[in-house]
């Protein structure tokens, strides 16, 4: 009784439920925080609120139908999801994708990266209280969505790729619009930097917050900008090139301290590198078909394969098993970067203040649709 009442009367610990309807958990993440004053002593990350069973559903769809399910995982970066899935199946079936299709895929994936980072920057800055950046970033994201709409008709769930290539060629004049967008984006990135990079409050809120060492980051299985922020040089685009990345010049930004500010700088630099890639791809866009030779009825031979791409959030991997008889996968499994990065939240958050929790959820850039699938 004595110990029980001691626990009951412990004035120092406050259990705070953050989410699933909290405005800063980027969807429906729930954190059960144990607070000492405002300092986080422990946190339970509860997820699964938007679990739709995409992996299981996929085992009952035929190979092409799955593409539109992948749209719904990371719903703010649908094109990279499509790309990862299509390339995995192509690898399984050993299909050759035409060079023009690979170029266009790269352009779409990089545009998607900019769009996703715009959303991240806006919400991250909003979480820390800079609301103007949010609207600026969404203004530019709108331009990308317009480009996608012109290409495939959809603004969010694109369903923009097919196994063996692309469903559509670029509309005429699209490449000029994309070039114009690159020019706009260049100046806008400078604008974001002006608002945040040297802002004292921004520095105080992000520098030294959520520091994680390279070794810890690897141990936790982090990927993407959170991993590179901790000075680990790992980017699937360089290490295991896919699409047409081996034909372009670009740099992978690496952080030094592994804090929130470094991860912010890395993503801002990725804006620039993405623009660089898009420009090169647009200039060198080869002529030719956009669809490879693919049978009408897809039925890969029995076997399994894993293929990863660098999505805006990190390493997005697909593991697919085909039994060679059915027109659907035998096993379909996704390695979502948001899910893996979310595992790093607990060590990042402990010891920080409540206000930092929202900043740290922002810095690892999770999309709950992808975490829960």
């Amino acid at each position: 009784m004595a110990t029980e009442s001691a626990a009951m009367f412990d004035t120092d610990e406050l259990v705070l439920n953050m989410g699933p309807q909290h405005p800063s958990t980027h969807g429906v993440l729930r954190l059960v925080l144990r607070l000492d004053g405002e300092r986080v002593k422990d946190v339970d990350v509860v997820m699964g609120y938007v679990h739709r069973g995409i992996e299981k559903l996929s085992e009952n769809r035929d190979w092409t139908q799955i593409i539109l399910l992948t749209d719904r995982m990371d719903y703010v970066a649908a094109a990279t999801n499509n790309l990862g899935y299509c390339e995995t199946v192509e690898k399984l079936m050993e299909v050759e994708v035409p060079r023009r299709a690979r170029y266009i895929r790269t352009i779409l994936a990089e545009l998607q990266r900019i769009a996703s980072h715009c959303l991240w920057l806006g919400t991250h800055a909003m979480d820390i209280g800079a609301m103007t950046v949010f609207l600026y970033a969404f203004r530019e994201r709108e331009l990308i969505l317009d480009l996608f709409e012109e290409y495939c008709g959809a603004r969010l769930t694109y369903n923009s790729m097919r196994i063996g290539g692309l469903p559509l060629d670029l509309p005429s004049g699209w490449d000029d619009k994309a070039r114009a967008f690159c020019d706009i984006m260049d100046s806008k990135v400078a604008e974001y930097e002006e608002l945040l990079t040297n802002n004292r409050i921004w520095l105080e809120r992000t520098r030294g917050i959520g520091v994680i060492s390279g070794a810890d980051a690897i141990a936790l299985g982090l990927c993407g900008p959170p991993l590179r922020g901790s000075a680990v040089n790992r980017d699937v685009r360089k290490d295991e090139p896919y699409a047409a990345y081996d034909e372009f010049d670009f740099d992978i930004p690496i952080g030094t301290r592994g804090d929130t500010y470094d991860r912010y700088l890395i993503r801002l630099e990725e804006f620039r590198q993405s623009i660089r890639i898009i420009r090169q791809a647009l200039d060198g866009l080869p002529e030719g078909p956009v669809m490879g030779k693919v049978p009408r009825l897809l039925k890969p031979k029995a076997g399994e394969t894993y293929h990863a791409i660098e999505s805006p959030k990190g390493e997005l991997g697909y593991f697919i098993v085909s039994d060679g008889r059915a027109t659907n996968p035998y096993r379909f499994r996704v390695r979502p970067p948001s899910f893996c990065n979310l595992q790093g939240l607990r060590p990042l958050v402990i010891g920080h203040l409540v206000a930092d929790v929202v900043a740290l959820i922002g810095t690892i850039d999770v999309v709950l649709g992808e975490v829960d699938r």
Partner: protein
Amino acid sequence: MEITPAHYTVLSAALFTIGVIGVLVRRNIIIIFMAIELMLNAVNINLVAHAQQVENLVGQVFVVFVIAVAAAEAAVGLGIILAFYRNKETVNIDEMNVMRW
């Protein structure tokens, strides 16, 4: 009817008595502290009223000191209450019957 210092003295006495009742009857130490503040205020009313009557501001000077002492008392007293509460999980004056724990 004119208001004389006697009126203020009676008001002050009544307020002081309420404070005394609070101290003697309540068992929540925080409320006892508040009752003490009431008593201090009762005294202040008296001082100010008579300072006005004798047209000498010394009474008001005293009130300034009383307020300063009250602030000091509140700070230390509440600090003690908090420290006590951390150890015994109670603010009941009847349970504060040892000088150490």
